[in-house]
């Protein structure tokens, strides 16, 4: 009995130590780019079998908290890091954190209304009104005005939002703050990853919101474009700042970034919601990888910088099939130079 027990114990300890040959990197954060990141990290592993980058999508807020605490090696976030968060990181770790844009995506308003297919048009006031709880029925005139040919039912609008701290929420509330004075006054003057939602059901992560909208009749929620497409859900056309109704797509997201691409700041923190331009989709955004300025483990540092280089070159080509917009060339060039900042 003793011998079998010790053999088992030794084997276990042996297994525990077997990890040495691989570089194991852990990241956590945004669900917004999850389809993209899971494809990238899976493909990157096929190319470099000894580098395993494990990304857990549990929301931008969780990612920022984890990378600040040091429990993960990097984070994904579509919420722009605030100055306070940057400072908190520096205070905790002793050095700063860098933001690297990876792709651009669109936050779309996906809905599940019987009889209404993919053509719903929403004005900024309509979106704000729905999420403020002011517009409560689908057949409200405010919605009907922009949709003359569509019969909207007289049912209550089931509003769905995020229940967790989310970059997608950040992008959405950033947009709402820009287009609605009411929203600024009642909920939040700037974009925020977590707010007190005036109304609605909470779903956890992009998946949760998509799931709720799919299940609930007469519901509306905000998710990243690829989630709506992968789940064959309808999403709305939104009126942009130039007055045109623009459908979210690769082209309209790319157009949204066009104005800011050349003037993007060195730390890459910029919002592209409600941009100028008649082809721009108004609720677009970059999404970032948050990587500490200093990485003590040399193999992890090399692995991450190798990944970033690959991502900026070959990885961008994989974005379009998943309906994420590749980064503008000006941004890519600037980023490649910025990789050197990781020590």
């Amino acid at each position: 009995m003793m011998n079998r027990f010790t053999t088992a114990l030794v084997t276990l300890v042996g297994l525990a130590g077997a990890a040495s040959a691989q570089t194991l990197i852990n990241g956590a954060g945004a669900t917004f780019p999850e389809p993209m990141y899971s494809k990238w990290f899976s493909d990157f592993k096929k190319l470099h079998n000894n580098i395993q980058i494990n990304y857990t999508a549990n929301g931008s807020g969780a990612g920022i908290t984890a990378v600040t605490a040091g429990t993960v090696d990097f984070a994904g976030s579509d919420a722009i890091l605030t100055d306070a968060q940057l400072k908190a990181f520096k205070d905790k770790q002793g050095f700063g954190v860098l933001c690297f844009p990876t792709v651009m995506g669109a936050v779309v308003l996906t809905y599940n209304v019987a009889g209404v297919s993919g053509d719903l048009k929403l004005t900024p006031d309509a979106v704000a009104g729905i999420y403020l709880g002011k517009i409560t029925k689908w057949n409200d005139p405010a919605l009907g005005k922009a949709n003359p040919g569509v019969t909207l039912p007289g049912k209550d609008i089931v509003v769905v939002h995020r229940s967790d701290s989310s970059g997608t929420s950040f992008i959405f509330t950033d947009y709402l703050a820009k287009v609605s004075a009411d929203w600024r006054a009642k909920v939040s003057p700037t974009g925020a990853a977590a707010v007190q939602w005036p109304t609605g059901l909470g779903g956890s992560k992009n998946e949760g919101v998509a799931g709720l909208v799919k299940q609930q009749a007469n519901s509306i929620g905000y998710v990243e474009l690829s989630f709506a497409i992968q789940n064959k859900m309808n999403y709305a056309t939104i009126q942009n700042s130039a007055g045109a109704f623009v459908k979210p797509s690769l082209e309209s997201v790319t157009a949204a970034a066009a104005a800011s691409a050349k003037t993007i700041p060195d730390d890459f923190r910029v919002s592209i919601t409600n941009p100028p331009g008649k082809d721009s989709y108004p609720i677009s955004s970059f999404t970032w990888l948050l990587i500490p300025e200093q990485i003590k483990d040399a193999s992890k540092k090399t692995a991450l910088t190798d990944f970033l280089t690959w991502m900026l070159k070959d990885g961008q080509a994989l974005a379009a099939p998943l309906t994420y917009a590749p980064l503008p060339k000006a941004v890519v060039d600037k980023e490649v130079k910025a990789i050197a900042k990781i020590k």
Partner: protein
Amino acid sequence: MASSAATVTPARPRGRASLLQRAFSGDALARALTFLAAATLIVITALLVYELWLGSGESRAKFGFHFLASSTWNPVTEDFGALPFIFGTVVTSALALLIAVPFGVGAAIFLAELAPPKLSDGMTFLIELLAAVPSVIFGLIGIFVLVPALLVIVPPIKDAFGDNPPFFLSGPFYGVSILAAGVVLSIMIAPFIISVSREVLLAVPRDLREAALALGATRWETTWQVVVPYARRGIMGSVFLALARSLGETMAVTMVVGNNPHIVRSLLASGYSIAAIIANEFAEASGVHKSALIELGLVLFALTIVLNGAARLLILATAQKGASR
């Protein structure tokens, strides 16, 4: 009961004694080793309570007792209050009890008084297996079976009241709701009520039943007016036990309750519970937010301790009262 009663081996080593036997060969060593284990238990528990107290410090300092009375939960302004979650936890558990107690006591009566012993044992075995089903499985059934079922069953009932439904059935119904959470919880706690109540009822002395029957009472009258009141305390104990279990349930609740951090009047509205919000927000929280979540955990812990303690006392009281089987 102890099956291998015949194997009393005298202390004569045969060949190489096993590790266990050699370790225990010294009485002092054995006592020390086991004492060490008991001490480790105490240390771990003390550490846990200490960490909870420490972690919730920031929140306790900032909000004081007002934390328990405030219904704001705003991560932006960093203003947190426990009331919506205490409310949600209590209401979902109360609803669960409302459903589970009649069913549970009813089933316990059947199993203790009416069913032939073999059938009773067999059915109790199966019901106790229900207690072993993991919470996440109940959540799975909750999302994909119960919520759609409620979406079909509840609207007609609500419509039957026309324009003036009672306050607890008012408002829109999305499936995910306090009602759904209460129903799932009731299924999860029913086995505890059934199992313990059955034990307690079986422990009631036969003479009482026979006396009642001899006086001409029907089976039901005997049970309801004599046996159950006698076992009342033990049944209450089982209810407290079930309540303690339902307060801490996390996964099944968070999957069907709707995650809405507000106090609501209607069972059809979505709500929240303490365990659910910790599960959802802990990973992304830092600073005061995190401290507030840990304080919520402390509140939940305190509630379960009190209930478990009360349960134990009540069950003990009934067990001592009746003659043992």
